[in-house]
């Protein structure tokens, strides 16, 4: 993840690495079908800029040489393409039938208590976004959730509490500046750290 751009004067640009990734994506599709690379390219953009603010979508449109309207309509359609900034950790609790039958509501209650927010909200320090999500295809390991890119299966309420407390402690220990950030950080669930006991 690169640094968020500090000024509005500097035009938004992809890093060399991101450009190379997008070029690699374009090579997967027929030359006259560049839009096919759009969804994976938008993931690259999210990794780079945190979320798909309008300037980012314009940049992707230029990079792929597809109309901005195509980028906008595709970005709007898919829930994993982020149209707003999210917390550093995106806690996604499945609330569909199998997870309901195995106690997902209890996990959601723990998340509310620990984070002080409800589903669809981000903590004021920008660390956590909590979401109720649809089926994660982990029904035999219910209740299931994802934090960032990591799956957690057969989660008990005690484990849920411990995971969230560990993440909060980790944030305090390693990134005091993050916790003090005045606005939500432009970081998506897709860039959540993979290190650490539960990362």
């Amino acid at each position, binding site marked *: 993840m690169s640094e968020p751009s500090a000024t509005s004067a500097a035009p938004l640009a992809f890093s060399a690495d991101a450009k190379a990734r997008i070029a690699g994506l374009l090579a997967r599709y027929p030359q006259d079908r560049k839009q096919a690379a759009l969804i994976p390219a938008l993931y690259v953009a999210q990794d780079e800029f945190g979320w798909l603010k309008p300037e980012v979508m314009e940049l992707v449109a230029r990079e792929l040489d597809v109309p901005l309207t195509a980028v906008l309509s595709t970005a709007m359609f898919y829930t994993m393409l982020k149209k707003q900034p999210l917390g550093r950790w995106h806690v996604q609790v499945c609330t569909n039938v199998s997870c309901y039958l195995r106690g997902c509501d209890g996990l959601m209650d723990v998340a509310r208590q620990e984070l002080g927010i409800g589903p669809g909200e981000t903590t004021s320090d920008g660390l956590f976004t909590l979401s109720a999500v649809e089926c994660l295809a982990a029904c*035999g*390991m219910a209740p299931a959730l994802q934090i960032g890119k990591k799956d957690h299966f057969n989660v008990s309420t005690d484990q849920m509490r411990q995971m969230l407390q560990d993440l909060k402690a980790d944030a305090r220990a390693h990134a005091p500046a993050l916790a003090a950030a005045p606005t939500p950080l432009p970081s998506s669930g897709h860039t959540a750290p993979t290190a650490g006991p539960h990362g």
Partner: protein
Amino acid sequence: MGSPHAVTVPHPLETRVLLRDHEGKDYTQLANYLARGGFGAWKKAVEMGRDKVHTEVRAANLRGRGGAGFPAGVKWGFLPKDGRPRYLAINADEGEPGTFKDRYFLEEDPFQMLEGILLTSWVIGAHACYVYVRGEFWRAIDVCERAIAELYQAGWLGKNIQGSGFDLDVYVHPGAGAYICGEETAMLESIEGKPGWPRLKPPFPANIGLFGMPTIVNNVETMACVPVIVNDGADAFNALGSPKNGGTKLVGVSGHVKRPGLYEVKMGTTMRAAIYELAGGILDDRELLCVIPGGSSCPFLTKDEIDVALDFDALKTIGSMFGTAGIVVMHDGTNMVEVLTRVAHFYKHESCGQCTPCRQGTGWLYAIAKRMGAGLAAAGDIDLLVSACNQIDGNTICAHGEAAAWPIRSIAQKFRPQLESAMRARMTASM
């Protein structure tokens, strides 16, 4: 790397052809797949020739494992012989609530699927294949990308595969959190970088599919079965199943059972055996109330309907579907209004919005369910649910309308006493 997805010790009622006891072996490594005889089917197929392999798959009664149960070999035969380039597109958008079987191949045994992809592409004459993996499957995407890269390095993908003169490129294409993209034409739209709006059919994908070209869309588990058919023959595959339903089937049992998990059984095994023997019976030894037989789009079954055989035809005969074989079990303590609400919310949330009956109708279903749960139900609301379902059913471009209407109508019709008691309890509580 142990599999979190499979029960490690096979149950005596299981017949494992696809699921493997990994015993410390990492089958995401090509060397380990080759060591167990992997890609043996390719060598055999080349000797047999394309037509013979196609004939075997057709004779094997390999029914599509994505939910519709359409015979794969018959589908392959729909491609027009007009010289246009052809595509294979693999549906790995596993999102049907209750379903967690393709995840096993994608994360633990990708080469079984990829050998099936190679065989299928060769038979149908496709030189490019896209594997559409749902976006939430981060690990699966990573495993499949690595597996594909390994195959290129070892000469199992790319130009002139193993000296056969056959070329094939395989690419992973990630989804981005839209259930509707499991509908085959929505999936093709999504690969093209567009919103997942299902297409009107005809034309069918076999004629006008990905990038306007003839395209076969098959499910992950269907692909995993193809090497088995080539290795063992159609007769052996048929012997694993029931009439017109060849092979074994992965069934995922979840909900109120003692041993939730992924099991592999012969087609034709009973639902009762899946629930009471494989999955160990009902949690806390309670009474069974209802069962979703194959993902939440299927009409629900009562406890009196579970002697049905697990195959595509038997479940259709009793007015439901085998779907994805994602079996969800609910005991007699289940709040059916809550289940109804979650099912309705799902189909409302995932409706693509193209067709008025689905876009508006799923909203109605959810609104009615919500007010039942809030103690604000009006007299006749259960009948209103049925009426709304009847107006969605059959009136939409794709099957999302039926996917919402059928289970909800079945809840309203089969579980009326449970809905009424839950509604009464809420009304009393809110007074």
